């Protein structure tokens, strides 16, 4: 197809060798809910292939199947041939954006998300809503019940928003407690700064406690995952270059993040900029330094926490941590260091929670079905706390807990460690 020839698009090897065996159907959360071929990884690969071969029009319908993918990457892991249907769906979104750029996406992913000040301004009404006691009032008067179900679920996602974004509070350099043994960078993600400030404060405390001098540059921008999810690759590359340049100012052993999604994207900068001669090597060097916080803590000697956390705790694997980064044992082992904590494994712990960033907004029905299944599994453990190192998962889990009337606390695993250190 000539009109496709000038576009950035998946290579033939990304789809050609699919043997249609169907193994991916058994692990796909959207297939399990829809039970239709088009909503399965195998179906998406077939659609992408025919679309790119010119046998099918790249219609809104076809693109919708690429957007219905939750990007959990379970299919990438199981495919015996080595095809990555999850990545292919993302690439197809980018193809579509090149053919028919969407104005609102450009405004959102280019104008708002990568600009921290604007993001902070945009979340201001939410902060007011909570700070002025409106949220409490809203709940007390039972007004929440009047909201349509989807809005009610979205409202439930909101964590307690910090008074000031952490970006404006956290010092550029947090000194190591005691002897300085490591020189590390910290990448403060948008959601962590705006919504989960307390968690990232805890993360830096835990690092400092274990001999790390933590450098947190204030002028980083969004990692790029939201833009990537909506096919805005140019935007992703721009943000990647910005963030790489920021960290090149410092001499750091590693760059740590406590957000699974940021971590997975930062680790891909090398790949994302591989075709850019000026940036390829720099991006590669940057990505090689990126670590999830639990991944890093597992590599250094840790002070044994003396405090206790008396609770039954389970863990939900963020897809961006387990599948994208293959980190799953570390957070579990770290929590097991804590006295009093009884760890129970949840069935299907590595099955997507249905968040996938914005699926609760864009694919509400599927998202909540996947979520309710997660809640059944959570409930079966009898846990009082569910830990998960991803803001998206945490918000989704919080919604699920409220929807299903459970009483379970949602927390970052490192926050538990911080509590056990008892500062």
């Amino acid at each position, binding site marked *: 197809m000539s009109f496709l020839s000038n576009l950035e698009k998946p290579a033939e090897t990304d789809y050609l*060798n699919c043997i249609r*065996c*169907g*193994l991916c159907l058994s692990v796909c959360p959207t297939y399990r809910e829809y*039970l*239709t071929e088009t909503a399965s990884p195998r179906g998406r690969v077939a659609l992408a292939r025919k679309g790119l071969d010119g046998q099918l029009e790249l219609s809104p319908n076809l693109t919708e199947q690429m957007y219905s993918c939750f990007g959990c990457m379970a299919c990438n892991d199981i495919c015996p*041939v080595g095809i990555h249907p999850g990545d292919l769906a993302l690439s197809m979104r980018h193809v579509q954006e090149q053919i028919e750029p969407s104005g609102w996406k450009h405004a959102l992913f280019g104008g708002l998300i990568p600009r921290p000040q604007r993001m902070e301004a945009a979340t201001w009404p939410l902060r007011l809503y909570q700070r002025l006691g409106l949220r409490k009032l809203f709940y007390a008067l039972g007004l929440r019940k009047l909201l349509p179900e989807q809005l009610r679920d979205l409202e439930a996602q909101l964590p307690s928003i910090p008074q000031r974004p952490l970006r404006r509070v956290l010092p550029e350099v947090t000194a190591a407690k005691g002897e300085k043994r490591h020189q590390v960078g910290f990448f403060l993600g948008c959601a962590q700064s705006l919504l989960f400030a307390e968690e990232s404060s805890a993360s830096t405390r835990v690092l400092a406690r274990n001999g790390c001098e933590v450098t947190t540059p204030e002028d980083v921008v969004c990692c790029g995952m939201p833009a990537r999810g909506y096919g805005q690759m140019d935007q992703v590359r721009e943000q990647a270059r910005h963030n790489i340049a920021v960290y090149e100012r410092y001499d750091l052993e590693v760059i740590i993040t406590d957000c699974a999604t940021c971590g997975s994207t930062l680790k891909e900068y090398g790949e994302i900029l591989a075709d850019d001669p000026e940036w390829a090597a720099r991006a590669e060097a940057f990505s090689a330094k990126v670590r999830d916080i639990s991944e890093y803590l597992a590599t250094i000697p840790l002070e044994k926490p003396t405090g206790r956390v008396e609770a039954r705790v389970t863990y939900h694997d963020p897809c961006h941590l387990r599948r994208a980064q293959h980190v799953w044992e570390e957070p579990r082992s770290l929590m097991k260091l804590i006295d009093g904590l009884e760890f129970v494994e949840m069935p299907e712990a590595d099955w997507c929670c249905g968040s996938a960033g914005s699926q609760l907004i864009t694919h509400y029905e599927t998202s909540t079905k996947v979520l309710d299944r997660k809640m059944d599994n959570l409930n079966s453990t009898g846990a009082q706390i569910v830990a998960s190192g991803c803001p998206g998962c945490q918000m989704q889990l919080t919604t699920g807990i409220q929807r299903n009337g459970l009483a379970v606390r949602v927390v970052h695993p490192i926050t538990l460690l911080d509590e056990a250190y008892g500062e």
Partner: protein
Amino acid sequence: MVKLAAAERLPVVARGMGSGLAAGSIPMPEGSLVISLTRMNRILEIDTQNATVLTEAGVITATLQAEVEKIGLFYPPDPSSIKHSTIGGNIACNAGGPRCLKYGVTGDYVLGLTVVLADGSILKTGGKPIKDVTGYDLKGLFTGSEGTLGLITEALLRLVAKPQFARTALAEFDSLADASKTVNAILSAGIVPATLELMDQTAIVCIEEAMKLGLNTDVEATLLIETDGSDEQTVLQEAATAAQICEQQGARSVKVAQTPGERNNLWKARRSISPALARKAPNKLGEDITVPRSAIPEVVQRIREISENYGLPIVIFGHAGDGNLHPNVLFDKRDPEQWAKVEKMVAEIFAVSLAVGGTLSGEHGVGLLKRPYLEQALGPVSLQLQKQIKQALDPLNILNPGKMFPV
């Protein structure tokens, strides 16, 4: 829907999860009506007293197994596609699997069926009694009919008690011939393992590349042997005897899985061979010949000769214990010369199987792929009779047309 299709003479193709290996669910003429049964996925009744389960056709086989195992019952058939194929599809293709050696194939567990016939009427046949000689065995007729005689919508399946203990061993051989002889040596010794699987070197290399399980890739063949039962001592004793026989027959080493994790890994390896082969070449054609088990060493040797003669690799693995082998030819279809060779090679593999008293397909079915060879395998009388059956049940030829029978 079938009534409507019959009125409109519209071809109807039943489809489960589309995991078949003989292209049985590919709609042949353009404009066929494909009916997906995946949303008919309820388990309707588990009868513990009679040990039966009544299920809709779209239930995933692994799901059904997990449900009945919760209450100590067992549905043994275990095609490698167990997690991504449906009971309806399994019945329509009379699916097998490793455990068939001891427990039999899908059809051995079908007690009753609900089938939508070609005119849209609904047939209910069979029931909970184990014995039933009232009239023809219609459930047997529809089992393995590949959607050409009717659409299976519900099934009543027989269950057995779940074996409490299992032991899995992996025997590695420096010679493929030794491994294939060992199959008979074990079975002749009076042991009936639940499974007795053969994998050749290429298969092992492919799995190791795909799964990184730590298998030795320099052996020429391995046997995967599992004994099971309700008495732990017997299970262990049988596994030990099988291991001993392997060693006597020249095995380099025999490893017994010590933990459930190790056992799972061995089975994960076996289940992923077929798809993992796709890493080796752009295309593969997997066959499914089944021969009397005494003929296995000879057939393995003949297949290797075919591979050498044509210069294209053939990977051999399969359920050696019941004589069911899956020789897979690896090739690149974009090269017309290779494709021409593959067609000849497949014909020769079939000829080898038929010559020793074997058959074209043990568990995959005829579908689209084996149609040309059907007469050679069945003979004219049987083929004519089968065509008459098809004619009687589907006079308009609207049910999965173009499958099974040679054009």
